């Protein structure tokens, strides 16, 4: 589904990703761990289509096609979703209005019929319940004044609503209480299916107790320096990253 080969990305002439390789097949869940500043969010952003990055080498294929040929919104239409590490607050933009605009934009791009307000309200209320949010968050402006955890829940709500084919979760578990963590995990597990895939960036093995990843990768200094199964996450929890970075430097 997603094939990243020798990807090199720079920000303002500063190399951030330095030859990254990653293969994600349909049905798989990949966890990416790694020290602060190693390039995890950069990877997530470049996949979702955020401006300001320069691809200096390598390629990314999504469903066999060059991902960089697609505009940001076209990637969403094609089923890519990024739950952001720092969701922005949109003053004056009503959450329900935004959620409906998003779902309908994607539906229209796929040649499906727009949902009417009534159909949408029915659907969104189910989803809100599923992610354990209060309906009052629908009436508020997008993320405006939401607590850190509430913002993350709103991201999961969007994921549950849009049902992406490839979900990228950038530290969605950071700042969540135990209940919310479970909800995120439930959301992910419910979405789990043979034709979907997920890449989960996290600092904590805890989330992986609930979501069992097929692969765990360590990203350090712009490269994946080690891959393994879920036991790697346990090992990292115990030993930190030092032994790996030394190993890779050697």
């Amino acid at each position: 589904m997603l094939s990243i080969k020798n990807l090199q990305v720079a920000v303002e002439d500063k190399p951030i990703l330095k030859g990254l390789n990653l293969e994600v097949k349909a049905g798989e869940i990949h966890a990416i761990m790694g020290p602060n500043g190693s390039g995890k969010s950069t990877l997530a952003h470049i996949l979702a289509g955020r401006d300001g990055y320069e691809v200096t080498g390598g390629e990314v294929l999504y469903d066999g096609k060059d991902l960089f040929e697609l505009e940001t919104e076209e990637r969403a239409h094609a089923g890519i979703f990024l739950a952001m590490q720092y969701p922005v607050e949109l003053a004056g933009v009503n959450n329900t209005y935004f959620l409906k605009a998003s779902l309908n934009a994607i539906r229209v791009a796929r040649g499906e019929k727009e949902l009417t307000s009534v159909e949408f309200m029915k659907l969104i209320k189910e989803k809100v319940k599923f992610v354990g949010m209060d309906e009052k968050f629908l009436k508020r402006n997008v993320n405006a004044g939401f607590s850190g955890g509430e913002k993350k829940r709103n991201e999961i709500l969007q994921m549950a609503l849009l049902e992406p084919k490839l979900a990228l979760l950038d530290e969605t578990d950071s700042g969540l209480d135990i209940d919310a963590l479970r909800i995120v995990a439930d959301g992910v597990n419910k979405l789990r299916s043979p034709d979907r895939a997920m890449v989960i960036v996290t600092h904590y093995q805890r989330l992986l107790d609930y979501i069992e990843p097929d692969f765990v990768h360590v990203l350090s200094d712009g490269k994946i320096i080690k891959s393994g199964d879920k036991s790697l996450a346990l090992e990292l929890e115990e030993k930190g990253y030092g032994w790996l970075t030394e190993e890779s430097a050697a």
Partner: protein
Amino acid sequence: MTVLSDQNKWFDRILAQAVTDLPGADLTWLQEKREQAKAEMLRLGKPTRKQEVWRYTSVDNLLKQEFESPTPDFSALQAGDIRDQIFFADDDCYRLVFANGRIVTDLSRTNGLEKEVSLGSLRASLGIESETIRSQILASSPSTHVFSELNAAAINDGLYLHVSANTKVSKPIEVIYLTLSLENQLVVQPRNLIVLDEGAEATLVEQYISTGDSVYFNNGVTDIKLAKDSKLTHAWFQDESHAAYHISNINLVQDSNSVYRNTSIALGGVWSRTDINASMKGEGAHCDINGLYTIGEKQLIDFHLNIEHLVPNTTSEEHFKGILYGKGRAVFDGRILVEKDAQLTNANLSNANLLLTRDAEVDTKPQLEIYADDVKCSHGTTIGQLDPDHIFYLRSRGISEVEARKMLSLGFANEVLMSCPTESMRTRIEAKIRAQLLSANTKP
């Protein structure tokens, strides 16, 4: 005999056009008022950019145009011409429609109006409420604004609303001023008078509109007098033709404990200037003005607020937002004056501007002039662009860039839109702004 300069000749020509068919030939006070205004107009002459209040706004293009007064029998207006503009269902409001400066009775509806309320055209009311009209027009604050003198020199017709003491007008009053030049470029000079007696309450929704993109000049003056404990909710919507020139001078006088809530939204005109002058003369008066201007290509919009706190314990909030695109230009000049005696004044003024394109431009000048020592006053202005991270967030959810920019711009305007007195007005104006932003060059 006075020798007129070329520029003064322009005012004199406009006036000569306008003085035919004036009402009240038998009212000496009105004749005198017109004469005085004419003299004052000629004395003031053409505004120059050396004058502080005209510093950022040139009138040169306006004075290059020639205008004629409309013939009084303009009746080409059909109900269909205004249907898309009205904010209220027929049963939910009283309505007056003015077309090219004159009331269109067929399209107006005042049946069921409380008998304590006078609502109609100034022309028709002159004979009936001569005394109220006289005292209010004579009290109209002498201005340094040559265009309001031009209006006063030919006082003719406009809205007249008088609500008697302790009466609450049961439905909103919708007033539509439609101007449309057919063969010749027209000038219309509405003279509006709104008087709320002690404890009276009303909601007034005014709209300045056109049905095409013709060139005309609206030069209006609105005097509002709020007696003790009265309450006026006033929505003012300027959606003129994009080739039109528009001037509105709104003069507000507030007695004690009166409340004035204004939502001013301006989208139209090639060149427009709106002055809101508020005089808070009674203790406990409160004035609240929320404004929004959304303009683009070749448009200039100029808002001047002059809020005077003259006695103790008055409060005011003035919050204006601007969305500019294309080569749009805006001027915002907001002044709050707190007189020496006006202790415990609480006044806050803000102006935030969103520039969607590099070529858009705004001059914003908030001023506090405070002579009392125990007051709470603030002012602030911002000029900014859309945040690329906000656009990215929306696009990453499948929303196109154009739509994302529109959503964020409307989000920026949201606070002002929410202050519209009715939902139907808000949704209609929102739709208009969306259409305007969609068709316009809003790309940086």
